[in-house]
């Protein structure tokens, strides 16, 4: 089939902060040097070619876009300084902007000032919205839900979650359909038979368990921080390595999400009402505390590394990078401040305002997830699923056919 060239694509990608890859003459050194490349998954050269030529559909249906962890090896070896790694990141931003049907992601990426204004406005909106219904500030101990009613927080949270789920699902479906079409993977291939379901479940585990949660290839193949036989360059200590910082941040984020849901669950089950003072070793509180520590540690070092341009992966930072790290850090930081306030004697009044701030930013973080860099949480596993699927041979099903 003839591929349609979109002459606007290149300019579009530039708006998403793509490096100027016009210097690329398709030599393929980037592909040769990429630790993730296998015979059936070749990039970044091909991705750059799609961009140069204007093959929009090809680019958006490339699972390879999302296998990259931006180690920066390709940018290092590129003979024309076309910055393939930076381009890959921009192409992912473009993909997020394209999979999202609302146009919000696009605005957030292509108009940083407006995007920041939206973020600030949203936080302010959540804060004012919840502060509007606020009750009194008890002074004996911090009665947070006396200040902002629990129902208001929960209901707002659920509404936000639903919006996010719908928007995220729409994006995932858009993406999956495009990649599926390009890969020749349809419903039948995925769930058409018992064997197919088995294969799909295997791929799902590979994508979510091994790769996303376990960070296997990030850790094993894309760890530019481990001095690979290079005597001049000392290995970065494990606690400063990119993959670990990323993993710690992710696990912290998931831990906090889990703690919040568990807390709500405990209340629903009538075991513990939300907001009841508990000792620090109470399991859910302990989980939240540990997860919070991880999130704050991870984001702090990540911010520091970006600020200091500590390695080639963070040589260039975009507003999108800063926004995500900032929101994560504020959410984690205010969470801790809140915890401190809870255990401080005399219920300091600033605790209430920190609480309001914390809830507003956390809501915003979740609400904006599909429209900002955090959307990779949605899309990367989809790509990894197709990637794993392609690597798993199709087993003949019980009916004897292969499809």
């Amino acid at each position, binding site marked *: 089939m003839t*591929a349609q*060239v979109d*002459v606007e694509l*290149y300019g579009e990608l530039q708006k998403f902060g793509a490096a100027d890859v*016009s210097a690329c*003459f398709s030599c393929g050194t980037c592909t040769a040097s990429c630790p993730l490349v296998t015979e059936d998954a070749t990039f970044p050269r*091909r991705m750059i070619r799609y961009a140069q*030529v*204007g*093959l929009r559909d090809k680019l958006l249906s490339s699972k390879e876009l999302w296998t990259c962890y931006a180690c920066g090896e390709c940018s290092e070896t590129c003979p024309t300084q076309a910055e393939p790694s930076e381009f890959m990141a921009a192409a992912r931003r473009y993909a997020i902007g394209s999979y999202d049907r609302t146009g919000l992601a696009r605005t957030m990426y292509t108009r940083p000032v407006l995007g920041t204004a939206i973020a600030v406005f949203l936080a302010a909106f959540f804060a004012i919205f919840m502060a509007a219904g606020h009750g009194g500030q008890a002074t004996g101990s911090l009665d947070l839900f006396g200040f902002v009613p629990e129902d208001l927080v929960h209901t707002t949270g659920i509404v936000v979650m639903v919006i996010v789920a719908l928007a995220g699902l729409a994006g995932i479906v858009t993406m999956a359909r495009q990649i599926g079409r390009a890969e020749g993977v349809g419903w039948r291939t995925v769930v058409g038979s018992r064997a197919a379901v088995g294969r799909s479940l295997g791929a799902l585990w590979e994508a979510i368990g091994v790769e996303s949660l376990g960070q296997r290839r990030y850790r094993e193949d894309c760890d530019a921080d481990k001095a690979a036989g290079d005597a001049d360059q000392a290995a970065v200590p494990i606690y400063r390595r990119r993959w670990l910082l990323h993993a710690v941040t992710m696990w912290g984020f998931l831990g906090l999400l889990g703690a919040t849901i568990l807390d709500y669950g405990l209340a629903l089950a009538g075991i513990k009402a939300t907001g009841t003072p508990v000792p620090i070793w109470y399991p859910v509180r302990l989980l939240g505390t540990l997860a919070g520590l991880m999130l704050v540690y991870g984001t702090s070092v990540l911010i520091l590394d970006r600020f200091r341009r500590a390695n080639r992966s963070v040589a260039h930072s975009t507003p999108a990078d800063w926004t995500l790290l900032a929101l994560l850090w504020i959410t984690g930081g205010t969470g801790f401040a809140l915890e401190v306030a809870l255990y401080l004697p005399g219920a300091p009044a600033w605790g209430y305002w920190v609480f309001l701030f914390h809830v507003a930013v956390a809501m915003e973080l979740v609400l904006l997830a599909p429209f900002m860099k955090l959307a990779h949480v949605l899309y990367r596993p989809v790509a990894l699923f197709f990637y794993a699927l392609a690597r798993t041979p199709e087993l003949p099903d019980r009916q004897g056919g292969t499809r």
Partner: protein
Amino acid sequence: MSQPELEVAALGVAGGAVPAARRIGVYVCHCGGNISDYVDVAKVVESVQGDGDVAVARTAMFACSDASQQDMIDDIQKNQLDGLVVASCSPKLHTYTFRAVATRAGLNPYEYSQVNIREQCSWIHRDDHEGATAKAIGLVQAGIARTRLTEPLEPIVVETTPKTLVIGGGIAGLRAAVGLADIGLQVVVVERELTLGGWVGRFGELYPYGKDGHALIAGLVAEIKKRPAITVLTGADVVGKSGSFGNYDVEVRVGGPGAGSISVRVGSIIVATGFDSYQPEAGEFGYGINGVMTLPEFTDLLDRSTGPLVHDGKPVRSVVYVYCVGSRQASDVEGANEYCSRFCCTAAVHASVRAAGLDAMARQFHLYRDMRTYGKYETIYTRSRELGSVYLRFPDDTPPAVARGEDGRLVVTVRDLLTDGEELAIPADLVVLVTGMVPRKNEELVGVLKLPLGSDGFFNEIHPKLRPVETVVGGVLIAGACQGPKSSAESVASGLAAVTQSAAILRKGFAELDPLVATVDTDACTACGKCLDACPYGAIAMTSLDGREVAVISETGCKGCGGCVPMCPEDAIDLRGYTDAQIRDQIDSLLEVSVA
């Protein structure tokens, strides 16, 4: 090397039994294996060693090498050789080399014979070593036979007219005119158009340094005006030529068909008639559809534009270049232009740099077969890529197709080898057909000058490396793109080479010509006139001698083609260096070998 480079065979001097015995040196070249891998060169040497007229016979690894040449000179002097035979490659390559060897050794250069055992033996009989060797032996024997009958000849000396006619007022011709005037020659420039400048004068910015074409020509014209030695005739055609080397009388018609003509006597002629731009057929790569244009048409558009390109009132957002249009055509097509026009890659790439300068946001797609921005022009290619041009390489057997799509926009379909061989449909506002150079239609001039054309239709030089601006017609030189595709810089360079070559003929006031011309035995001539018709150069005339008519051949007009020789019913014409007796003996000795 296990094999000695030179095998010497000491031969006894013939006892003087044979009348007019010769002392001939024979050298059989290995050509570094080109010959000796297929022809047993030692056996060839052996075969001539019994010949009483052969005083020295050797093989040489490379006969044309300095060392081998010196060995020959030493042999000639030590053994007092009076004839020289080198069996190596084509006479086109090295006749002059070995004639010079003879001269340096004190031997008359016309005592030398070249035998071709490379093109005629080793290269074409690779599958038959014995046969190739036998053939080489025959050819060498024939060469010896010819040399037995050679006699010392002296060059023909002609007085020359210190004036040059330059045909064509383009950049090559104009620069040549200035150069000729500066070395003290008179110049007449004949330009068919009413204005000077040719192709370069039509255009603005040219590669590589962005110099303006109009300005370049204006500068040259200003230089010409400063030089009274130059006469310029515009609206003028060359319609006739008579005379001979060093003194041509050229008829120039000024003012179009039917107008009167003037006669100019010149010593040399520089033909710088340039090229035509390839004109695509209707429908060839969509030519004829609005928005599909040739490279010169696009260059015009660029020259006229001061901001983002506009075509037909609409902004041009996407330009697609299709390369090699009218060049490198498949050889199985009748009249195909198989050659590469070589200027067009750089010209198109340069055009895209200009277009990007006018509009950085316009997308430019280059569909090419091979990118030949040779030499320093490579930097222009790099620049164009940096400015966002995308290069797509299509397979030779799958050329792009240009059509108007349903939405009215042009669409170019191409298979891009750099995108996994994928077929792509590129929407375009302009399609530029990167057209090459074709020879100008100049039948009248070709007829007048009697210049041979190559199979590509361009004028042919004598030797592509060593005599690049000379033609087989003595004193008629070629310069610029009339010889084959050239950039303006290369055209000027060849124009100046023609100036040098003119100077070589004219500055001394006389010239020396090859004496290998036809001569008439006036006693035998019956003035039948058949030879007059046979001569393609008009070099034979009737004259009165001792009260009777005989044919006379102009030594300066004759090219030594031999066309008249077989036409003479009385065998009264002989070609020096290739006399009937020599040719007969050559044939006889060839037959002896093949029978044996």
